[in-house]
């Protein structure tokens, strides 16, 4: 097991709702963005402004006028408690301020004090408080203990989504000069270099060339991983972790093989070399829009006809739900395809068409389960039917893999538990939170390992993959358990002309792929 300076939650056979332990995570705070370079390029003051209190209230008023969600959600909560046991951070830390309603109340009590009749004149009665230094510290701590996974919103009778509240709170804090280093530094890199990891064009080209060589060595087939290729049909936008991190990169190899077999031309872009959009995590429409516009510009410059996104959870939310709003209209693309598409929609389409030759037995050494990523599950769709975001990934896995098992129904589909690292929290300075927040998912995973001999968990999100790789060892499980869905596809796919060693059956299938 990995070493830790905190207690690692014990995994139970049946999930339990733990008693509250007030203040148990009050010490958890991510590093503050102290370097002006992390704040100013995003349009925020370099440090906490002098009249921050006054400014924060002013910005809260501004956001209340811009977001119906915020206005309605702050008014409508009746404190019924249905959300109190739904957050993975509460279940893992027992800190009551990690109950969604209590987290919302950190903002709501200030809203009531300054914006409502009852809070102005009867603050004690309705639990309204002034915006003090102490409250601001609570904001910084607990609004960075929300991964904006929306699980609470599934169970709320009014659909109150704590993610909306966290986003607003982070935007207010950024605007008064109290930003989170991790998110803001990354956004800065996107503006400057083009991706979260700060990989410049030559490094990307080099990496992709390396991948081509690897695939050639493995299969004897020349699969291309093109960069900035004008006139390609498809622009692939994928999280930059796919370029080098494990198991992400195996997914990228898979996308390339699928495109190759489908016989479509495609390209990556060095300008839009990042699917992630951390502008969402900090609740900034302006930054989210600026990041999204790179994709539009890249699509126009390269003259592509379609845009497809790689495996990434929140990126798919921004792409599916927001891209048309932020960077549309996409009337210059081929109207026969939705804009954008998910790589799994593409792959599932090809599987249905029969263009891919698949050898499921290549994955026979695995018993696979699937982790629904929160943003994909509760904020997007795939395909034409509601719930396609659940069926399409599973259909693809089942098409390339003989052994598939789902986890406890209360922990999958729209009830899925966050990996514990989403929403801009995937940083080492929040390790305790990440480990504890992973508890409900780890519990469900452990149960299918014990009951069904599950060996691997597939995911379709760069953050989930990185988070699990890091967190699994804390719970005594192997970090390499986590695989990309397109890694499974990649293993099973038999490329046209590939020397398989045993060329027995399947001669007849899909020679006309190209």
């Amino acid at each position, binding site marked *: 097991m990995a070493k830790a300076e905190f207690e690692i939650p014990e995994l139970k056979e049946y999930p339990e709702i733990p008693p509250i332990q007030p203040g148990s995570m009050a010490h958890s705070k991510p590093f503050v963005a102290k370097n002006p370079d992390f704040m100013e390029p995003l349009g925020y003051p370099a440090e906490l402004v002098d009249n921050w209190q006054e400014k924060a209230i002013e910005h809260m008023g501004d956001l209340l006028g811009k977001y119906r969600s915020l206005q309605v959600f702050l008014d409508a909560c009746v404190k019924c408690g*249905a959300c109190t046991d739904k957050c993975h951070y509460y279940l893992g830390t027992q800190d009551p301020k990690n109950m969604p309603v*209590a987290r919302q109340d950190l903002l709501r009590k200030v809203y009531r004090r300054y914006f409502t009749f009852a809070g102005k004149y009867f603050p004690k009665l309705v639990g309204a408080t002034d915006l003090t230094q102490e409250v601001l510290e609570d904001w910084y701590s607990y609004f960075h203990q929300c991964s904006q996974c*929306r699980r609470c919103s599934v169970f709320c009778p009014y659909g109150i989504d704590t993610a909306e509240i966290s986003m607003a709170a982070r935007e207010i804090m950024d605007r008064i000069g109290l930003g989170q280093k991790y998110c803001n530094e990354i956004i800065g890199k996107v503006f400057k270099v083009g991706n979260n990891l700060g990989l410049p064009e030559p490094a990307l080209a080099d990496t992709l060339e390396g991948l081509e060589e690897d695939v050639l060595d493995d299969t004897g087939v020349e699969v291309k991983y093109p960069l900035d290729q004008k006139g390609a049909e498809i622009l692939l936008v994928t999280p930059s972790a796919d370029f080098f991190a494990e198991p992400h990169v195996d997914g990228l190899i898979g996308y390339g093989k699928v495109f190759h077999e489908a016989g479509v031309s495609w390209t990556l872009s060095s300008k839009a070399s990042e699917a992630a959009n951390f502008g969402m995590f900090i609740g900034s429409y302006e930054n989210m829009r600026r990041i999204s516009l790179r994709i539009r510009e890249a699509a126009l410059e390269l003259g592509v006809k379609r845009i497809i996104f790689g495996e990434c959870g929140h990126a798919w939310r921004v792409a599916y*739900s927001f891209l048309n709003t932020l960077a549309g209209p996409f009337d210059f693309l081929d109207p026969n395809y939705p804009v954008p598409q998910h790589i799994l929609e593409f792959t599932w389409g090809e599987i249905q068409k029969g263009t891919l030759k698949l050898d499921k037995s290549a994955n026979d050494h695995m018993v696979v389960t699937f982790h629904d990523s929160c943003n994909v599950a509760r904020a997007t769709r795939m395909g034409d039917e509601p719930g396609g975001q659940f069926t399409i990934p599973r259909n693809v896995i089942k098409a390339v893999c003989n052994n598939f098992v789902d986890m406890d129904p209360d922990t999958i589909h729209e009830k899925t538990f966050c990996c514990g690292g989403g929403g801009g929290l995937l940083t080492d300075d929040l390790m305790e939170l990440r480990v504890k927040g992973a508890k409900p998912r780890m519990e469900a995973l452990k149960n299918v390992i014990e009951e069904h001999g599950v060996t691997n968990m597939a995911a379709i999100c760069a953050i989930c993959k990185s988070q699990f790789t890091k967190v699994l060892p804390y719970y005594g499980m192997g970090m390499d358990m986590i695989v990309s869905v397109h890694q499974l596809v990649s293993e099973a796919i038999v490329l046209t002309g590939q020397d398989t060693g045993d060329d027995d059956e399947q001669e007849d299938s899909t020679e006309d792929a190209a």
Partner: protein
Amino acid sequence: MSFLTVAFAALFYAATLLLVVGLARRIRLYWKTPAPLKIPTTPAPTTTGGVVLRMFREVVFFESLFKGAKWTWLFGWIFHMALFAVLFRHLRYFQEPVWGIVAWTSPLIKYLAFAMIIGLLGLLGRRIFVDRVRYISAPSDYLMLFLLLGIGVSGALTTFVAHTDVVAVKSFFRHLMTFNFATMPNLPSDPLMIVHLGLVALLMIVFPISKLLHVPGVFFSPTRNQVDNPREQRHIVEWARKLEQ
């Protein structure tokens, strides 16, 4: 006219005004505030008809709450449905002639007062005994339950234990409604009825400035009322469009 009658006449006019104006202003605010992004909690309906159906299930069956907390759902749903039924029965105190359906169902519905009280007691119990719910409860959360309990219990008492001169009460309200003060009868000075009416007026007054705003709020909740079609239809609001210029 007695002082009590005048006071309650004034009280109910004021309460009605505050309720109607307060609620209208709030609804107008929700209506006017834009929702810049598509944020339905998915899986979500892909058509407007589907959204209407989702909202119907949410408002009538409390679908999400049912998924989330069975006991709270049970007590909450019983309370709300009983309240609506009892409110419906109260039409008989304002109508002349009384609708057939109201008169016909009245003898049965009156027993739902007990369901309403049981639902409220269940919700109160949960607030007191579940540590997580106790933690999030403000004084106003308890007071709201006591207020509703007070209304329910006082109402039930006047129906089942100590009958009040309900004909006089009805006449009082009929006169209030038609602004006919010349022949307005005195409100019976029955303490139970005074408590009942006083609490109802208080409820009307606090409605637009309290968590009872969940009533209009649920219809404006973007996670529930938006159609899942962001790829098919571009969604953009005025302030966001300005950024494009």
